[in-house]
């Protein structure tokens, strides 16, 4: 009898736990598990959004990897942005954060000045940058030309379009700056004092005191930066459209990644395949590639996280 009561109590307890967990479980099932399973399912189906899906085997995968002319350029661009843009954003964000924590007067003003661009809507910010960096009429090139510096083509030149996007990303560094400032201010002052007493140089203090203390935040910035960059859509799309001079409206062709596919990113392909070509199966393949890449990068960074713990445990 007592055994039955115990079993019943345990069952009730398990149900209660499940009931408390249910909001999360429902959210997980609806917003994560279902889309994931659906995406895998549709990647093997021929589905145009109108007719019922039909089994197509590996056709979509073969098409995307072997015949879809925009996949490899988009993948290369996305990887370039992940490696260069994320790295520079983290370094620049940390640098700005350190600079502002060191400033004695006017900290609030500088903090606001550096943070404000982050609040600008991406479309407006990108359009403003495209006009500023216009090779013919933009003020940046006018200044460079007056200074005798060869002016780049920025968004109109395939070799400069991604650096121009990186500049745009560095301009909106406010989010990382705030996170790094909070981390830097949290580093125990006595550790710096002890290092100074030991005769540590500025570089050594940064290397052996600052960096180990803020390493988790650096890791956080890198991982979220990688994920955000994998989803990079609005800025490259708008920059390409504005620079090409052809505003894509209803009835006009999708022009991928002006100039010369250099601003094409994987999320743009998901839109192009799914919503412009009505090829949801292939769109799902690209989405799964994005998913796999995000997972690989994240797993790699997590495994390497010890590399940032330079204090030597």
């Amino acid at each position, binding site marked *: 009898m007592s055994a039955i009561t115990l079993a019943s109590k345990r069952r009730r307890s398990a149900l209660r736990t499940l009931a408390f967990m249910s909001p999360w479980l429902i959210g997980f099932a609806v917003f*994560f598990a279902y889309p994931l399973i659906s995406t895998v399912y549709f990647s093997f189906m021929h589905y145009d959004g109108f007719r019922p899906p039909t089994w197509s085997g590996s056709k979509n995968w073969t098409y995307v990897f072997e015949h879809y002319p925009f996949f490899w350029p988009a993948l290369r661009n996305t990887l370039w942005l992940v490696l260069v843009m994320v790295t520079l954003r983290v370094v620049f964000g940390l640098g700005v954060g350190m600079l502002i924590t060191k400033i004695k007067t006017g900290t609030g003003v500088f903090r606001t000045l550096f943070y404000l661009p982050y609040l600008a809507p991406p479309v407006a910010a990108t359009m403003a940058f495209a006009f500023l960096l216009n090779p013919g009429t933009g003020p940046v090139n006018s200044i460079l030309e007056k200074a005798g510096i060869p002016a780049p083509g920025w968004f109109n030149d395939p070799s400069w379009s991604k650096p121009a996007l990186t500049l745009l990303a560095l301009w909106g560094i406010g989010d990382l700056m705030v996170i790094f400032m909070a981390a830097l201010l949290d580093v125990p002052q006595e550790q710096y004092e002890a290092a100074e007493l030991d005769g540590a140089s500025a570089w050594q203090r940064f290397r052996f005191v600052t960096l180990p203390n803020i390493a988790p935040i650096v890791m*956080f910035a890198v991982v979220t930066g990688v994920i955000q960059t994998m989803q990079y859509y609005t800025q490259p799309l708008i920059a390409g459209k504005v620079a090409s*001079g052809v505003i894509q409206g209803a009835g006009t062709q999708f022009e991928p990644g002006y100039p010369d596919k250099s601003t094409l990113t994987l999320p743009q392909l998901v839109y192009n395949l799914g919503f412009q*070509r009505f090829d949801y199966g292939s*769109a799902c393949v690209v989405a799964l590639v994005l*998913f796999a890449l995000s997972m690989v990068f994240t797993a790699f960074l997590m495994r390497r996280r010890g590399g940032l713990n330079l204090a030597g445990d």
Partner: protein
Amino acid sequence: MPEKSWKVIPDVSRKAAVALAASASLALLATACTGQSGSGASDDASKDTTINFWHAWSAPNEVKAVKSLVAGFEKAHPNIHVNVVGNMTDDKINQALRTGGDKAPDVISSFTTNNVGKFCSSGALVDLNPFFEKSGIDPETTFPKAMNEYTRFDGDRCTAPLLGDAYGLYYNKTAFAKAGIKTPPKTWSEFEADAKKLTIAQGDSYKQLGFMPDYHGWETTTEHYFGQFSPTYFNKAGKSNLATDPAFEAGFRLQKKLVDELGGFKKLETFRSKLGDEWGPKHPFHTGQVAMQLDGEWRLGMALDAKPNFDIGVAPLPVPDDQAAQYGKGYITGTIAGIAATSHKQNAAWEFVKYITTDTDAVVGFSNGIHNVPSTLAALKSPKLKYDPRFKTFLDIAANPNSTTSPASINGGVYLTTIQQLGYDYESGKVTDLKAALKKTAAQIDTDIAQAK
């Protein structure tokens, strides 16, 4: 202290990162996995009913014209009421066509003519042929030839033309007079000579460019150029004709010759990057920076609104020298209208579609309001049309049986994008062996179509 941080923050970050990565990369597709199209209904169009009409027009004058068009219909059909929803994007229309429902459109109109192939082949819009037959209307004698072509796919006429766009040549009459050119060019040879005469250099740029030939020069796209060469995009088996129809090679070579003769790709692109955008008042044709412009009929009103300090001339685009007899033709496209397969009021919806696309006075009134080309042969000749005398050029191009369009394809305008991509590579010098590139591009088009089937 650092050790403690490692144990807490990275673990949380990892979970958050994994969850974020997964959900964010999939969220885009979460909405794409539901909904099927249904079948039509045999409703009684003589009974009192309300239909939903979705369209993409948004400018105040356009919305006013749509209202007036609908008012005319409701007056003629007092039992059918139309609930109008404007400014609808293609994405929204596509979603609604898939899902159906009481609030979904019974009738849609879209600017994206290229989607006709998908709408027809998927059955998202119903075949209008039986409706035309029932009403005793012959589309072949009602609509201009090119408009007939782009509103059907594979024998299925799932859309009807609802006004059209015709492409012609705008030219700066004052610049022409200064350069000693008396008439607009009729052949591409004359055009080349005129473009060079009209080009005035200024340093390493231009004071005035005769013509901006680059494919990014707003409307100077491959299909608009090629329209003058009357190409056949697909053979009877549905395979790309890009490498076999000489019209394409001729079109590519003409454009490349213009690019090279007018200063070269790099110089032209640098100049282009300094010019105003297509839809603003600083368009280079308005400002006099470019003396000739390939453009649609809407440019006339926009150019006049910009009050340029020169006289605007309008003419058909030139034709190849060996097709001089066909001078007057042009490229045609336009807005389409169709009935949703999910609609349960298809007969009532047909009454509306029939009125807005085939009733001469309705089409003329709408054309007067929107300033697009009328889409029926009768409306093109109607004395009730109000227009600037120069607009007549576009009416003639639309009515010209030699005018061309780009045919509907099962995957929308993908083949046009692929051809355009070859154009970019060829004009920039990235592709030098055009014949080989044409073959490769044709194979790509066939692969893309096979993928869509």
